[in-house]
């Protein structure tokens, strides 16, 4: 029974007018209760663990929490406190700097991807795996290794610098250098991802275009500007957006690289660390909820921009 009604609208493009009307007013019964059996387990979890918490967190951002639990409505207090807290701007700036450094990896990745795309290159898959390795490795674990590499007294980086007569700082314990260290590790861990996505984008450019351009006497640079750049733009855009959103959520690397008692943290922390610190170290849940809302809005803006522009390139990315 249900199968018949579904068939009517789903496939055969039957006489248009009556079919649409039937679709409008629930004459066709759909698939009965089956869809609910399929959807409900997920839906229940999503409502309980995501939708409700998002609404509740938004509400919490207007409340103040007592030391021993319990909270009361406090209007915009958290927000006014937040926007006058220098730590917010410091964390935002740190996050932006980190994101910018990680994004420096995109042109490098594009260059490496074009080298990897060389026809007939041997070991290409081996290189791919090598560059992708940091992307899949546990951030908390690799950060411990980098911590040793960056160690001020016996780290191998400072030893290498000393060969050139440069005295290296105690990287993870010096403001500025600590953020630089975190950013470099972030760049290292996301480079492979950008390289693979851009490589796929390069592969999708038909080689005939270059052949035609060659026949027309277009220079290498001209080919790059008029063929590669416009046709690769959707992939570049995708990589930039995904990397920006991921970088804005910097936490794991920072936490594990610096350690949670590092004196350098106030000057180095990211937005998400600021959130974590307020909510789970200082137990200031209402304030942390306000920080979460700010992060939400910032990331929402980036995502909206992505949707807008992606529609323009639909099917290309």
């Amino acid at each position, binding site marked *: 029974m249900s199968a018949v009604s579904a068939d009517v609208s789903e496939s055969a493009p039957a006489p248009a007018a009556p079919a649409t009307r039937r679709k409008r007013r629930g004459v066709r019964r759909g698939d009965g209760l089956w869809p609910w059996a*399929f959807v409900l387990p997920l839906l229940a979890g999503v409502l309980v*663990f995501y939708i409700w*918490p*998002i609404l509740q967190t938004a509400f919490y951002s207007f409340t103040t929490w007592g030391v021993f639990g319990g909270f009361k409505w406090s209007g915009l207090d958290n927000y006014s406190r937040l926007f006058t807290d220098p730590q917010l701007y410091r964390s935002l700036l740190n996050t932006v700097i980190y994101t910018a450094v990680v994004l420096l990896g995109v042109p490098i990745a594009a260059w490496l991807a074009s080298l990897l795309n060389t026809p007939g290159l041997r070991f290409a898959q081996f290189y791919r795996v090598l560059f992708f390795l940091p992307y899949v490795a546990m951030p*908390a674990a690799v950060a411990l290794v980098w911590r040793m590499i960056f160690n001020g007294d016996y780290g191998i980086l400072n030893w290498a610098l000393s060969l050139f007569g440069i005295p290296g700082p105690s990287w993870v314990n010096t403001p500025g250098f600590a953020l630089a260290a975190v950013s470099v590790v972030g760049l290292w861990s996301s480079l492979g991802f950008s390289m693979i996505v851009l490589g796929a984008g390069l592969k999708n450019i038909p080689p005939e275009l270059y052949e035609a351009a060659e026949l027309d006497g277009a220079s290498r640079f001209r080919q790059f500007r008029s063929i590669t750049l416009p046709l690769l733009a959707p992939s570049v855009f995708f990589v930039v957006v995904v990397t920006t959103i991921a970088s804005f959520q910097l936490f794991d690397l920072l936490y594990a690289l610096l350690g949670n008692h590092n004196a350098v943290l106030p000057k180095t922390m990211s937005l998400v660390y600021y959130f974590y610190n307020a909510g789970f170290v200082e137990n200031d849940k209402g304030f942390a909820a306000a920080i979460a809302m700010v992060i939400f809005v910032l990331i929402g803006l980036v*995502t909206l921009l992505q949707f807008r522009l992606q529609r323009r390139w639909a099917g290309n990315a």
Partner: protein
Amino acid sequence: MPRARRRQSHALIHLVLGVGGLIMAFPFLWQIVMSLSTNAEVQSVTPTFWPAHLQWQNYAAVFQRLPFLSQLWTSVLITVIRTLAQIVLCTLAGYAFARMRFRGRAVLLGLVLSILLVPSQAYLISQYQIVQGLGWLNTLAGIVAPGLFSAYGTFLMRTAFLNLPAELEEAARIDGSGPLRTFWSVLLPVVRPSISVLAISAVLWSWNELLWPLVVSTRATQMPLSAALATLAGDVTVNYPVLMAASLLAMAPILILFILLQRRVIDGLASSGLK
């Protein structure tokens, strides 16, 4: 084009990619070296590029001095449970959202997908409250619960089912098979590639994730490896080579899995853009 010139340009490319690849792999290689050194060798000002004697007992010490085994077990359990749950729940829901008709479908789908726009901080505090209220802090259930449900997985599976030709289902219906049969024996086998993408990203995310387990588990024996290693970061009492061995062992399962399934993992993650 003369062959020699081509070989020469390839040599240059190999040089660039080789040096780049070495930089990428260096931390892992250096980690292996440190994990087999003595504490004194690791802390010598001139690096010990190869330990005088390979200290294999550092790996034994990981299991003796740290609650590594129970943490490993926690990591394995949360990864397996969350991945299986995501596959089952997202495939079912994705199928219904793509192929079945029911009241409120568009609204409910929009509700689920809206989570994709929201960073995890926007629900973390409240999730913590819920887990705390259930008395699940420092339990496996607490770490696992929110991650059983995935909006991204639902999106992925819905797209997979949407792309199937309608004839598949019709043929099954004409043969007289019900929705469950059709789903199980006709459609499920066809969307297997998407299920594997979902599984890969779920495993990777679940194994590596830090913030949530850090928040809901405070007891060392109840933590997964990611949280356990991160809390050891500032701890000066730990022996460095043992710490290196522990972090290597913590990464190893994923790295081995990655090397075995390399093409699938790379393609799957690159297309989704999610860890």
